[in-house]
């Protein structure tokens, strides 16, 4: 059964452990700017929202890549960037309507969440269960998926 990240902003305390764990896993440095998961803070409403790729079925990034450098990991379902194929053209970064695949100037490649190969570090680092790794069917991502569908240029009538 494939699993996916479930994020519950209600439980997030903005401790930033997820960003540190992710950046260490991805780059061997504790550098939140290199993290694939970001916590956004809404001080007006005291809300904190961890945010990363949902591995959406539409896979805008993968479909826009001109050199086949984003591929599905058959085991985890994650859409992964194949560094040796990525030329750094960045088309995926404008194609992804969620803004969750980004260009790294230090590597000259794009980076995104790859679910750490099936054992996400952000989940292990989160002390409040704001980020959990659950069966794909159970995630609370429906709202986001609905939004993804709305973005689909192949649905709906011509305006």
């Amino acid at each position, binding site marked *: 059964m494939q699993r996916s990240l479930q994020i519950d902003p209600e439980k997030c305390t903005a401790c930033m452990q997820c960003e540190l764990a992710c950046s260490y896993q991805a780059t061997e440095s504790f550098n939140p700017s290199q993290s694939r998961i970001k916590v956004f803070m809404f001080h007006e409403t005291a809300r904190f929202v961890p945010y990363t790729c949902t591995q959406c079925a539409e896979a805008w990034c993968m479909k826009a890549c001109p050199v086949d450098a984003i591929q599905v990991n058959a085991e985890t379902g994650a859409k992964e960037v194949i560094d040796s194929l990525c030329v750094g053209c960045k088309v995926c970064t*404008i194609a992804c309507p969620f803004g969750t695949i*980004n260009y790294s100037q230090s590597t000259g490649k794009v980076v995104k969440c790859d679910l750490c190969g099936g054992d996400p570090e952000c989940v292990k680092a989160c002390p409040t269960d704001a980020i959990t790794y659950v069966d794909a069917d159970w995630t609370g991502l429906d709202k986001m998926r609905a939004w993804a569908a709305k973005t689909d240029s192949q649905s709906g009538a011509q*305006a």
Partner: protein
Amino acid sequence: MKHVIIGAGPAGVIAAETLRAADARAEITLIGDEPEPPYSRMAIPYVLSGIIDETGTYLRKDEGYFDNLGVEVVQGRVEKVNPGKCSVTVNGGNVNYDRLLIASGSRAVKPPISGLDLPGIHHCWTLEDSRGISDLAKEGAKVVLMGAGFIGCIILESLVARGVELTVVEMGDRMVPRMMNRSAGNMIRRWCEKKGVTVFTSTRGDGVEQAGTELKVTLSNGKAINADLVVVATGVAPNIEFLEGSGVKTDTGILVDQYLESSVPGIYAAGDVAEGFDFSTGARTVQAIQPTAADHARAAALNMTGIKTPFRGSLGMNVLDTLGLVSTSFGLWNGVGGGERAEVIDEENFRYVSLEFDEDQLVGAITLGHTDHVGVLRGLIQTGTHLGAWKQRLMADPTRVMEAYLAATQV
């Protein structure tokens, strides 16, 4: 069902894959006129800068990929489409189809000035072109790049990476005039100049002549520049000439409806050659960008198999890296009548954001010097998200777009 696809670029290949996924038994023929396996023109600049070799441009990397997919790849240039006989003429024979997709792309065009047939003058459009450029763009070589549009600017990056002495000539009053407004386009120009590139805007080449072993390029600003290599990147045009007499209606490109079908039933078009609906304006336009080619191809292929798939229109968008300065533009980046613009300019640090609103909806955007989460600009525009109170916050600080997106959709 027999499907024939003219053109082996991204649109042709994605269409072939989509057709196969939808119909395991369909016969699929993909016709391309270049000798290499299907490849991505977009990746050519990265060959020139040495990041990849030619095989790195191939759209699909696995040996025997198209054979395994059951797609027959034919090399040849289609001379004619014969809708009455449901056939295309290629390599002196006819290939029959039940459904035809025209994804013949576009080609580089020359401006009407003298001397552009001399040796040492190249487009940067095909792999063959890139070999000609590679031979001449050696370290220290003098190079004139005509055209600082989107394609010109991508080539600019790789020419500088090769260590040439570069002069850029652009007719428009700024760099990337069809993607960047004046503030952003001029910021890119200043950036290039700071990096040692000579840039002339509002300038055109008047002619090129041989001057000993070099070329002499005469410019409309009265200057003349000697060069070892001239790269012409002044524009592209859809490949539609072979459709003459076919009855397929064309304007700039092939006019298609919301199903990507042309005026002739059973003949579809996708990618750079298709003049399809623009998401922002509702009018038909030739966008000639990779994401549109991919979206067109998928929708066209589904419609070809009988799965009715209306296409809402594609959003014009581009991302460009000019010597390390990353820029993006989306949708109606020049704004709409009665709309409002939020703008923040940081000249010193080469950072810029402009957002264009229609009421409380985002309709266009430009960024410079930002690489994080730029895709949400597309998301916000294409979903028509009502930003409510966040619109005023963005008017005050347009860099907060990611928060606005999360507030509108997640919180």
